[in-house]
């Protein structure tokens, strides 16, 4: 069948069973948009800014096991999308981003809306392609999906010049892909796994530290089985929340810069640390030299060899897909005759319970001003702990991570690596489209929400009944917190002198807006919001301006050098 390049693009998306393409049209992608118009299998979601297209595709991908797809035009379409692409890259989210390019003959001539897309995006994609021949479109898109979803997932970009989408060729979607230069490891090294299991069974102060790799590889059940079988404590990274149920007794909370006292202490003083799909980043273990002061054996399971021994030297590296490696680990433990020393484990748990007794997340519950932590606790109660929660970046993100107890994977959607303000609302759109009928909350702040607030229009057009929980403290809260701690309370640029009336702004977009100013109104407002199942409700909640996120490990400090709220 002879078709145009644009038809090939759309047929490929159909072949990949893509439900939604998030995008924004423009000159270089007009042929593709024309083909999208002529069919109804792949639905197009028109965003209001290209950054949001990529975030929405990202939210869709994070909340499902699927690859998210975005489509933008050349030049500014691409540069606007870069923030979204970099966000996905840092968190290893599988995306295929299709970008229009100026016609082949115009490339390099500073044509209208021309940028070097492949060059600009190279450092923030897993891989990218410029397709110069119409026959190459189908094999390239096939490769793009394969690369995006296999190995360590990530965004893959396919740049297609306008003339190529108009040329005609025989359409044939390849059944399979083989790339001699790309063969991701799946199974872990059996000898290493054996050694790891031996070490786990001999541990006296064990700790399991699980990150986003558990979510990506859909291994939560296996993680839970392993942790319960061994009776070990477990912590999750910001990216790993929901990988182990937060309401379980063996869960010691999130670790890291704003992790719990018990999680950070247990990390530091463990004698055997099992790291699964996590990467010991700077926000997780603080100063690596301080972390190395306590001798411990580290087992590290990760699909990306370059994540192993990058910041922290490990003793037993296991390169492989977390799910496959955990299968092997579980099998070996089940058949092992020995079990970890019960007495040692009991003593370790007694120590952890003592740390837990510090109640590091306590806050003033009697405050006459709304405390942001209280709002998240109520959000958890009102939604039965079962909502999809997206967040933006800053204090509200940390409170959501600390106080919404995620029991299931893929429920917590946030920009962990890049820390992109403006992520929350568009990501929530992708989540809601992937899960129609489910409760989707976007926890945000008055700073972040304004970075992509135009998407309220998209939400109206596509009838997305999101619940926006705006923790409005009239400050760029995390910046203000650092300025309070490091810069002598000089709040340079962190106070917003003017803010819109968010409730009325939401109404202007045709949504429901509610302003909440008293603690006694919080629960009722949340209930009302979630009862309005078919409407987007924007809750503008005026919270304490001076509340800080604790515990806190200051930048460059050791993991156990935490500031607790009680110290102040």
């Amino acid at each position, binding site marked *: 069948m002879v078709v145009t390049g644009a038809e090939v693009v759309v047929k490929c998306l159909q072949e990949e069973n893509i439900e939604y393409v998030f995008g924004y049209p423009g000159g270089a992608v007009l042929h593709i948009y024309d083909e999208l118009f002529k069919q109804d299998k792949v639905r197009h979601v028109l965003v209001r800014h290209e950054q949001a297209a990529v975030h929405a595709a990202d939210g869709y991908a994070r909340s499902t096991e699927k690859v998210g797809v975005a489509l933008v035009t050349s030049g500014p379409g691409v540069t606007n999308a870069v923030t979204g692409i970099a966000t996905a890259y840092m968190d290893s989210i599988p995306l295929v981003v299709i970008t229009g390019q100026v016609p082949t003959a115009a490339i390099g001539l500073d044509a209208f809306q021309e940028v070097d897309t492949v060059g600009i995006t190279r450092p923030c994609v897993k891989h990218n392609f*410029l397709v110069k021949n119409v026959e190459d479109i189908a094999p390239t898109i096939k490769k793009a999906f394969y*690369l995006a979803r296999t190995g360590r997932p990530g965004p893959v970009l396919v740049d297609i010049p306008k003339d190529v989408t108009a040329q005609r060729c025989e359409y044939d979607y390849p059944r399979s892909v083989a790339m001699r230069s790309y063969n991701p490891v799946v199974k872990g090294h059996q000898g290493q796994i054996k050694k790891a299991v031996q070490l786990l069974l001999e541990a006296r102060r064990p700790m399991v530290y699980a990150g986003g790799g558990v979510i990506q590889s859909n291994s939560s059940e296996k993680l839970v089985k392993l942790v319960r079988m061994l009776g070990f404590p477990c912590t999750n990274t910001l990216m790993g929340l929901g990988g182990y149920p937060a309401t379980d007794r063996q869960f010691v909370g999130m670790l890291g810069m704003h992790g719990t006292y018990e999680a950070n202490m247990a990390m530091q003083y463990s004698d055997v640390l099992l790291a699964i799909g996590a990467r010991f980043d700077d926000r997780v273990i603080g100063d690596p030299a301080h972390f190395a002061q306590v001798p411990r054996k580290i087992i590290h399971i990760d699909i990306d060899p*370059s994540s192993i021994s990058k910041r922290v030297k490990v003793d037993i590296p296991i390169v492989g897909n977390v799910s496959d490696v955990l299968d092997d680990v579980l099998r070996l433990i089940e058949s092992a005759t020995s079990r970890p020393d019960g007495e040692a484990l009991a003593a370790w748990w007694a120590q952890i319970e003592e740390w837990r007794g510090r109640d590091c997340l306590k806050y003033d519950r009697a405050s006459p001003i709304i405390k942001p932590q209280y709002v998240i606790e109520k959000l958890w109660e009102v939604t039965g702990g079962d909502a999809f929660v997206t967040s933006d970046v800053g204090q509200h993100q940390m409170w959501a991570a600390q106080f919404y107890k995620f029991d299931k994977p893929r429920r917590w959607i946030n920009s962990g690596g890049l820390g992109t303000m403006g992520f929350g609302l568009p990501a929530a759109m992708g989540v809601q489209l992937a899960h129609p009928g489910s409760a989707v909350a976007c926890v945000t702040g008055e700073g972040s929400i304004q970075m992509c607030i135009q998407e309220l229009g998209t939400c109206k057009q596509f009838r997305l009944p999101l619940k926006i929980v705006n923790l409005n403290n009239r400050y760029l809260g995390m910046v203000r917190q650092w300025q309070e701690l490091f810069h002598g309370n000089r709040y340079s640029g962190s106070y917003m002198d003017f803010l819109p009336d968010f409730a009325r702004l939401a109404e202007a977009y045709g949504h429901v807006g509610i302003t909440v100013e008293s603690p006694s109104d919080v629960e009722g407002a949340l209930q009302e919001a979630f009862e309005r199942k078919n409407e987007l409700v924007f809750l503008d909640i005026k919270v304490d301006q001076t509340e800080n996120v604790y515990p806190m490990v200051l930048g460059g400090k050791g993991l156990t050098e935490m500031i607790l709220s009680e110290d102040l």
Partner: protein
Amino acid sequence: MRHVISLLLENEAGALSRVSGLFSARAYNIESLTVAPTDDPSLSRMTIVTSGSDDVIEQITKQLNKLVEVVKVVDLSEAAHIERELMLVKVRATGKDREELKRMADIFRGRIIDVTESAYVIELTGNSTKLDAFFDAIDRNLILETVRTGVCGIGRGDRILRI
């Protein structure tokens, strides 16, 4: 420590910039980088001379391996290997210098590949220290222009980098 890293990569547009971009993005050193197609025209072979601690070199090889177009990576300097570099030197060759430069070229097993009334172009190959030594052996004031290819390397004996 100085390391010589050799890699095979797909001979495709943009592959070189992925490698050089990786080095600049992650602040790794590049002393020299050479690349050309191999006997199999679909593959290019690249030799990178870099330096760094063992941890940094480990990260460099891992990050290179991660690039989708890179097929194979070896650290040649881990074992016995040979390095060669080609240099062309244009020197002012007049009067008694003509004979002296000819003699030096011979001692260094170089060849004079272009001759004019006032200049020679000398071709020299060897490892980098030999080429450096040539500069010390002649009167530096006579040097008009130099160009070096950067190091290319290959393992000795049974060490073979092939797919």
